[in-house]
């Protein structure tokens, strides 16, 4: 494992009760400024992996490093405050306004009011939401708007790393694509390190620098998108089927139109 990795997992295993482990000897690393997508079906251990990194959960065995430091030596609260987290079900606080939701981590860190207000405005701008959103409550937003606020909240305290748990899964395709592209642009502009969990290979191909495939708690493949296309593992090839068919179909349509 490279010494300068942002996030490193070495032989990480997680048991819940007596059954098969949710994660079984997972080794993985995310380089600084890299966008890594972890693809897996539901029950493959994706969310568990994410929760271990910011210590919402503790591993049964193995070592996790964030910024080179073993996470068990770090204060979990401080750790979570410096890692952005975008939640699967959005997880906005329903009793707080958009501005309050975005400013939550800065508030926990004890920022001054003026600084928080300026930061909220900046993030609303980055997420393409105008100032009228500040005072709205989550239930007054569309699904796409809510997740934009969710991303803004994750970025509020200026983290170097962002963990995303199927962030766009519940959105319609157009919204999902727009938000994905916007986020990828921010990832590059802000120099973030992103680890995104998804069950959707198309999304992973569209956004990530590198993809790891998780199956039954084990990483069965990782590499650049191109390396996965003809991967030796049948399951990986299976995952690639859908985008390939889709690409072929679109190609055919385009060819037909040109003729």
């Amino acid at each position: 494992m490279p010494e300068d990795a942002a996030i490193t997992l070495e032989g990480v295993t997680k048991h819940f009760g007596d059954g098969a482990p949710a994660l079984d000897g997972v080794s993985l690393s995310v380089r600084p400024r890299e966008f890594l997508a972890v693809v897996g079906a539901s029950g493959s251990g994706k969310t568990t992996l994410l929760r271990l990194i910011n210590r919402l959960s503790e591993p049964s065995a193995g070592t996790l490093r964030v910024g080179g430091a073993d996470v068990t030596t770090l204060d979990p609260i401080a750790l979570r405050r410096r890692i952005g987290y975008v939640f699967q079900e959005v997880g906005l606080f329903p009793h707080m306004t958009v501005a309050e939701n975005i400013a939550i981590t800065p508030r926990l860190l004890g920022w001054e009011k003026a600084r928080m207000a300026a930061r909220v405005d900046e993030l609303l701008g980055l997420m393409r939401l105008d100032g009228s959103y500040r005072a709205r409550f989550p239930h007054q937003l569309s699904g796409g708007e809510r997740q934009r606020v969710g991303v803004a909240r994750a970025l509020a305290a200026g983290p170097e790393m962002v963990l995303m748990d199927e962030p766009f899964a519940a959105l319609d395709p157009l919204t999902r694509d727009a938000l994905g592209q916007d986020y990828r642009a921010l990832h590059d502009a802000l120099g973030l390190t992103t680890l995104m969990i998804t069950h959707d290979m198309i999304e992973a191909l569209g956004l990530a620098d590198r993809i790891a495939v998780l199956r039954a708690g084990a990483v069965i493949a990782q590499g650049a998108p191109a390396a996965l296309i003809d991967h030796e593992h049948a399951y990986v090839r299976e995952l690639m089927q859908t985008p390939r068919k889709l690409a072929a179909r679109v190609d055919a349509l385009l060819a037909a139109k040109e003729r």
Partner: protein
Amino acid sequence: MDEALADALARLPDYLGSHVLVSVAALALGLALSFPLALASLRRPVLRALLLAATSIVQTVPGLALLALFYPLLLGAAALSERVLGIGFSALGFLPAVLALALYSMLPVVRNTITGIMTVDPAVRQAAMGVGMTEQQALRMVELPLALPVIMAGVRTASVWVIGTATLSTPIGQTSLGNYIFTGLQTQNWVFVLFGCVAAAVLALLVDQLLALMERGFSARRRGAVAAGAIGLVLTTSLALVPNLMRGNAGYVIGAKPFGEQYILAGLIEDRLRAKGFAAARRDGLGSAVILDALAAGDIDVYVEYSGTIWANQMRRSDVQPRAEILKEVAGWLKGRHGIETMGGLGFENAYALAMKRERAAQLAVRSIADLARHAPALSIAGDYEFFGRPEWKAIRETYGLSFARERQMQAEFMYPAAAAGEVDVISAYTSDGRVAQFGLQVLEDPKQAIPPYDAILLVSPKRASDKAFLDALRPLIDAINVETMREANRRASGGATPEAVARWLAERIGN
């Protein structure tokens, strides 16, 4: 009708103020206990189960019984504290009422706090941890605000319960809106009963709505609504309390048991003390078991007792002695045991007796309790709530070998009409009660003297036993009322006159 209403209104500042004071204190204590316990139990399943079970069990105890239980408990605690720390406190009235009502209020608050927090969407809780909140911060910033509507619903339920149940604190000596209900029930003053019920209901609804306003304000984050609700609550409380605070400390407290004759006599004593320049207050509706302890402890200063009650209930005597002998022994026992001063008899007896409808007695040829023995297995008897538990009843039964087909307990007011209507054959009556004649009943003779004499006697608390001015003010009442006069007074009261009006009539009649 108008007189009764005016009388009810005149008492409102006192009753309402005391009611609000005891309710607010009980709720404050209840909330102060419930919230920390509920929060502490959130992550401790065993504690949570115990807490919910305990508060549920408290809730199943009838309100009146819960209130009554606290009196002996506190009496013991007060005696212990007096001995160990040298600090005594009153076990009557405010304290037991507040403690019992506070316990009563806990279930809805505890249950709703726990439910409200535990049903917060787990995804939101996850998010709170994920953004880097500590457990405390997650509770304060996310879980509590989201659970607030449910918690406030619990607080509202608790406050309505407490305000309603506080009416039951009258029998343990805490003045409340229940005074209307208990006095009204005893004197058949239905205006009073209704007035008390309506006043308590209006107060409960008002507080409930103000709390609801605050809750809506919190949820919609309208500071104005929260403030309006809070100001309304503070205003209600202080408006209710001001008259009480202004009146200051009432010097001498007159106790009364919960029936008409006692209210008349307490009114007579009160008027008399006021006329002589004493500050006087009343503790109405004290239960028989509570009132003597209250006098011994100095929670009340004077009340009218009946010699036979002390003889049978307190001294546990079942033999019957001549009137004068019993009076002497009772006075000696009260002095020696409690330091209570017996000033003397008022001049009449209010004994327990068995009574039957005149026609029914003639039909069965029953003139005395001895005659009754033959017929009893086919007859029913009704007694007041105390009667069947009293030693006199045991004595009557054993002396005459009585065994009735059916024993029923009822409110004294309903026994007389029930006997007159033939719904019961025999009732436990009082010899000074005007209703014996009013309902055409006949008091049965007691040839074997199973029932001890019940001279009305004036008792004074130990701490007033050498208060010469006080004793002098009361002395003219000794031997001043004969049984005919008292019967007439009782008849007037059961005929619809207020006890106060009858007390004034009585004072005039005996030339005081």
